[in-house]
């Protein structure tokens, strides 16, 4: 496959955009990405979205709709869906499209509009990512499935709830410096401990907030980028995708993200790097337990030791493996189908040196991992300056 580079990016703040339609959010991010890349028009528009086809007022054919909104007459366009992993899956589809040599310029836009339905409807929408017949029918919300995992994890490994607090405190501290973040206020460990219980043992500050938002990136053949210009050239060094059982109860091991391990291995192998060479990691901290499990499955720490990276400060911007550098899902927010693209935008901004107040000192290799469901679909990408 020919090498693929990320040329431009755009994003809207994650928030409750009650005054905006889904299409206008997607259009804003998409057009900003095109401007950022200095391009008028892509060859293909790949949309990632989870919920637009669910329930009342649903909208199909988002690819055509967003292409039309952006004035991209006749362009190839479609939507890809893998629940909360849609964004990572769309990015990977873009990598394959450009990598194939059959397409030159791919615009990947992730978009989600979640705040226009009552919370019970949004909760039910999110539950469609689980097995409708054998999980969702019995009433567990998406949070409940994660709570089941977290409780068992604490039981097996002996971690106390407060041991997970560092993930949320770090994410909020970073989100406070990111103008695109949904939650821009720092929190303390005390805030974390005292937060309202949502679904025991998951409390409010273990959970990422949903929101409306859109993020977009432009992919081009790396060979087309000549040296020069203001930014370093950022290429996709590794891309991996894997699945596990859809239903949490069907997993061989509920406390191990087998799909994270598998997809990370693919990405590491392609990039020719290991966990030690990753400078920062945008992981899928939809819940703090997912942050811990992701760190373990990708080989950044031993099984059962995820919280230790938080307690030791390794995940801070000054640590050896900064995570959620612009707030992560926890503070930037989790507009589900768009999240995977936000992560890529954030990795690219760090590598370009364009991460503003969140800028890490000269990172060269960044990784993003996007999770659909409670570990069922997992996409891992490694981006690097070349």
């Amino acid at each position, binding site marked *: 496959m020919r090498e693929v580079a990320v040329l431009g990016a755009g994003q809207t703040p994650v928030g409750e955009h009650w005054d905006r339609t889904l299409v206008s959010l997607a259009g804003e991010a998409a057009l900003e990405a095109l401007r950022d890349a200095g391009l008028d028009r892509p060859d293909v528009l790949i949309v990632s979205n989870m919920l637009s086809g669910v329930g009342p007022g649903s909208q199909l054919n988002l690819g*055509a709709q967003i292409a039309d909104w952006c004035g991209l007459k006749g362009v190839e366009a479609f939507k890809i*869906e893998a629940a909360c992993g849609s964004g990572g899956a769309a990015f990977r*589809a873009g990598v*394959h499209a450009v990598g194939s040599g059959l397409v030159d310029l791919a615009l990947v836009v992730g978009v989600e509009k979640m705040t226009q339905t009552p919370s019970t409807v949004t909760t039910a929408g999110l539950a*469609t990512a689980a097995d409708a017949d054998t999980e969702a029918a019995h009433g567990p919300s998406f949070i409940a499935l994660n709570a089941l995992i977290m409780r068992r994890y604490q039981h097996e490994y002996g971690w106390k709830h407060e041991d997970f607090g560092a993930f949320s405190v770090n994410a909020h501290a970073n989100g406070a410096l990111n103008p695109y973040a949904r939650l821009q206020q720092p929190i303390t460990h005390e805030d974390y401990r005292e937060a309202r219980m949502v679904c025991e043992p998951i409390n409010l500050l273990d959970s990422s907030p949903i929101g409306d938002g859109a993020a977009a990136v432009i992919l081009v053949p790396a060979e087309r980028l000549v040296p020069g210009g203001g930014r370093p050239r950022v290429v996709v060094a590794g891309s991996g995708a894997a699945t*596990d059982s859809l239903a949490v109860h069907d997993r061989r091991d509920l406390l191990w993200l087998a799909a994270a391990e598998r997809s990370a291995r693919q990405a590491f192998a392609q990039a020719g790097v290991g966990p030690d060479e990753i400078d920062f990691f945008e992981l899928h901290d939809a819940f703090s337990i997912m942050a811990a499990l992701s760190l373990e499955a990708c080989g950044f720490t031993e099984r059962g030791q995820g919280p230790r990276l938080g307690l030791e400060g390794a995940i801070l911007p000054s640590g050896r493996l900064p995570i959620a550098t612009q707030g992560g899902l926890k503070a930037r927010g989790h507009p589900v189908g768009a999240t995977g693209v936000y992560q890529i935008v954030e990795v690219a901004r760090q590598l370009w040196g364009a991460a503003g107040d969140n800028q890490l000192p000269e990172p060269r290799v960044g990784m993003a991992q996007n999770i659909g469901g409670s570990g069922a679909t997992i996409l891992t990408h490694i981006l690097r300056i070349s």
Partner: protein
Amino acid sequence: MHAPGSALPEILVAGVGLTPIGEHWEKSLRSIALEAMTAAVEDAGGLRPQALFVGNMLAPALSAQTHLGVLLADFAGWRGIEAATYEAAGASGGIALRQAVLALASGEMDRVMVVGVEKLTDRIGSSVEAALAAAADADFEAVQGLTPAAQAGLLMRRYIHEHHVPEHGFAGFSLTAHANAVGNPRALYRRAIRLEDYASAPMLSDPLNLFDAAPVADGAAAILLTRGDRHRPAGERTPIRILASAVATGPLALHDQPDPLGFEAALISAGRAMAQAGMAARDIDLFELHDVFSIYAALALESAGFAERGQGWRLAAEGEISRTGRIPISTLGGSKARGDAGGATGVYQAVEVVLQLQGRAGEAQVPEAQVGMGQCLGGAGATVATHILARADRL
């Protein structure tokens, strides 16, 4: 390896599988899909895919199920493989096929399963209609009560007006599709209809009558693709190669299309596909088009270059679309009589083209077919995916 003519690397069909379209009230979405995928794997001599690309439009709305990729990969016993779902309304299956082609062309994988699946009949008609209407613009069309049939009715009336089509001028599409379906054991409606039947059919959205519209029902189709340089299909079967794969879009809302009867996205999509294959309309031996409404069959024939603008209906009226005509369409019944399983359509079409090219279409066989085209539509021509397949032994 790029063979002369095609811009694509050598992508071959390893196996195909179909379920009959129908009201499978006793089967779940996952078991319908598995049936087609299992058949495709068996057809491919047991080859196991590395990735699963799903085309589906309505599972989120009608089955409260997103995340079909992993659901079906797991249910098929392929836990761990890459999987995702592609949606562009009725073009979903063609989109999934196109993305599989790109993934294979990238060289990152060499065995990909594409499955189109739809489960509609768990819900009553009005819920299904509402879900289907989401293929139109929810804010500016569906909210006005516009249905897909009504969109087609609007286009059909305007077409008749502009091109002076006589009464029952579209009947040939329906008659041909039904006649062809008689030879297809998997078709939903295996009976021929007469002009009198067509003429006396009740109106759906005038001038569009019941026989101008395809019945929607449950179904699944699967096709297993490989890169020819890494996996050559074994056995006696005629090798089939994908020569072209192209997608184009136009405005979602019918009223936003500058020239609604121009079917512009289909024009672009078919044009790109033919350019990729290095072919013209005269090189195509059969065309599985998306006759979800007869007017769309006429427009698809025109935009692909088989007829002049405004003349597509004449091909039907003059018998040119029958199995022995100039450009056979809906050779196994098409959406009209085989049945339309929404987002699965593009994969049904591809599988049917393969069956024709391999001489496995039984009583519905088109003689001497070497190159076939499939084209599916999302909405009123808003998204159009076109594929050209050919016998690899005759290239």
